[in-house]
């Protein structure tokens, strides 16, 4: 049966131009796919999208759709104009967790494509803003069939709603010399410890883990996650002086001064008369700039670990927040190290689940109660690395000062 095509004069204008067109792709499904269901669904979708373009309005509504045994992971979409666009009146998205670091074999992609072809619209995105594979467009019944099929061969749903969400990690150690931790391991250990909280939304609001292997933070973890794990190191960075000198001789001293020495945020670099580099490692803050400029000569040190920042989020409700340093440095080598990072996450999520208001992100709760109270609750001692500067206002009651000061010196003595 030939599809009665909706006219799409506005969308048609998105087929011209040199960048690949998603409209052309959707039309290919409408016109060339052997399955009538896919032809109908995509035609209907194009019809509704054209209607949105004409009226400048969206027409999807949420609802309640899930798979058996889970409370989340599906983004339900029911059309408000389903009477006119019948074949896509139910057009739900399945959020599926990608392999940590977004590595795929084409065989696995084809297997997913074959399943999606059976049960869905044929549209998919790698990946959504939270990091999920987004299988866009299945009706209510087929959501379960598609999930059953891909769940059998190793894929699970991500989070949706007030729950632990799908995590993200950079390519990291798999292909990057800046990597300072095992990003994939951190990613999977953390998020897979909370599968129950991923699948059954019961937290105040969303909670995201993101892992970047170095302070370049390719995963935008500091600003976009509640629990950011950033690889770093605490010994001296490595300098291959021969490579550095070769760089200076190739680029010239002025270039090196303008682009490396003077760009160090803590003035920790000196270009010596013999074109070698001296690094004042005590002043270095591991910003990554000089390593980025001369990756062949400059490398992270050997004593690697992670910095953990808590509470990043976007605008709703109190405005954008960056995560705050809560663990300045943590080794992730022994099994105990790995267990303790998971325990820290449990501690934080438990405290927030108990004390966060409805729809309040972890960072907003910290803003409300103050970082010091949060630290006390999760059993972490204050550290000057957690602040840009100490308090600037005297409006605070400080009759516990003496005990706090003694505690500080006792802790220092223990560590020495």
């Amino acid at each position, binding site marked *: 049966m030939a599809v009665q095509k909706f006219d799409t004069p506005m*969308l048609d*204008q*998105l087929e011209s*131009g040199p*960048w*690949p*067109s*998603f409209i052309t*792709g*959707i039309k*290919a499904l409408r016109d060339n*796919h052997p399955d009538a269901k896919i032809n109908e669904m*995509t035609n209907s979708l194009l019809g509704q999208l054209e209607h*949105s*373009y004409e009226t*400048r*309005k*969206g*027409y999807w*509504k949420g609802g309640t759709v899930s*798979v058996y045994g889970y409370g989340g992971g599906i983004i339900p*979409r029911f059309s408000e104009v389903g009477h006119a666009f019948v074949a896509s009146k139910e057009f739900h998205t399945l959020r599926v967790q990608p*392999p*940590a*670091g977004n*590595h*795929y*074999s084409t065989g696995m*992609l084809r297997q997913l494509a074959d399943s*999606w072809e059976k049960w869905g619209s044929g549209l*998919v995105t*790698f*990946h959504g803003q939270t990091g999920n594979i987004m299988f*866009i467009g299945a009706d209510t019944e087929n959501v379960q069939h598609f999930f059953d099929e891909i*769940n059998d061969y190793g894929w699970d749903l991500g989070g949706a709603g007030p729950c632990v969400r799908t995590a993200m990690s950079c390519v990291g150690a798999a292909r*990057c*010399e800046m990597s300072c931790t095992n990003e994939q391991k951190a990613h999977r250990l953390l998020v897979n410890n909370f599968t*129950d909280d*991923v699948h059954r939304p019961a937290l105040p609001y969303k909670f995201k883990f993101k892992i970047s292997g170095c302070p*370049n*933070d390719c*995963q935008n973890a*500091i600003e*976009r996650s509640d629990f950011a794990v950033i690889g770093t190191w605490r010994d001296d960075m490595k300098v291959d002086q021969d490579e550095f000198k070769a760089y200076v001789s190739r680029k010239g001293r002025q270039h090196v001064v*303008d682009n490396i020495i003077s*760009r160090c*945020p803590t003035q920790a670099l000196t270009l010596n008369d013999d074109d070698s580099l001296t690094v004042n490692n005590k002043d270095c803050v591991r*910003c*990554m*700039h000089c390593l*980025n*400029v001369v*990756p062949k000569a400059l*490398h992270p040190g050997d004593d690697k670990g992670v910095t953990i920042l808590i509470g990043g989020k*976007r*605008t*709703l409700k*109190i*405005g954008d927040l960056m995560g705050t340093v809560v663990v300045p440095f943590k080794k992730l080598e022994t099994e105990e190290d790995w267990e303790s990072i998971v325990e820290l996450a449990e501690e934080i999520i438990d405290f927030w689940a108990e004390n966060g*208001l409805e729809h309040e992100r972890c960072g907003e709760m910290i803003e409300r109660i103050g970082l010091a109270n949060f630290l006390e609750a999760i059993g972490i001692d204050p550290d000057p690395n957690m602040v840009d500067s100490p308090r600037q206002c005297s409006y605070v009651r400080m009759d516990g000062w003496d005990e706090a000061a003694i505690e500080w010196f006792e802790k220092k003595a223990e560590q020495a």
Partner: protein
Amino acid sequence: MAKQEMREPIESGCPDPFQYMHPVMRKNFGMWKYHEHPRPGVLLHVAYSGDKIWTVRVGTQRILDLFSLRELCDIGEKFADGYIHFTIRSNIEYMVTDEAKVEPLIKAVEDAGYVVGGTQNSVTMLSHTQGWLHCDIPATDASGVVKSMMDELIDEFRSTNMPNRVHITTSCCQINCGGQGDIAINIQHTKPPKINHDLVANVCERPSVVARCPVAAIRPAIVNGKPSLEVDEKKCICCGACFPPCPPMQINDAEFSKLAIWVGGNHSNARGKPTFHKLVAAGIPNNPPRWPEATAIVKRILAAYKEGARDWERINEWIERIGWPRFFEAVELPFTKYHIDNWRGARKSLNASTYIRF
């Protein structure tokens, strides 16, 4: 379906990536030494073992139909060992271990209509949200905006002529999923929600909606004899936070939902701490199917940045050096009272010094 017939889910969570990882990446995991950038769109990583891997980065339409996905798999199998990596900005990366395979791979990708680039100092793929295609609260489309802009910016994706990398993001609402960007194009509503009082009581959990408002502008009310909600329009900041939990409080408007452009968001710690983006332009019409007004401003900002910034300066660093007065001059945008922040913490953004630019 009866309950006993239902299949219990296997709660396997996030899959192990090693099974899908290119073997050379698996072999040299954690043992990479350095990288080079042989040409735009191509990275060369060298391991301590001496192994080398070339990565070819490819821009796509992001919303992939199965034909495109399979075509990208075909290319991966024929030219790139059958492995694909996705970047955070939805670019595809093919990896090869033989330099001779790079050019044929690039040719295959380009012949199929995809775009090689997005590395180093390029304008890489715009990161985008769902929009009218699939979101329940959008005031605009996402894929269409990105397609329109990438058509205009494709040369900057293919080349690396910017002072540093440029990350552009879009967002179809004011509150949620779009990220920080060197340039961010986000919806900015300019009128309070229009309330359908007949529906509020049945559809919305009223206390939650009241609690959701960032400025406490919503209160319970009886309207036309029915329990509903009312908005103090003098307090309302038109953010749309009430709309998701209460769809009868329609915030989206064909005319009054505008686009705003923000600059200087930077996630990296390099040279400075991460920064949020700042408002530079608003009142831009939400104009499908190609949003030419927004694209024109983005291009102006990029041109000024390219012209004025020093090597390695991201947009935020460039502006920090030249100062906001010169920025507004360079991009020919007005500076208004709306640029002066009045949200919590706003004092930090005021100039409490005699540092004045002339």
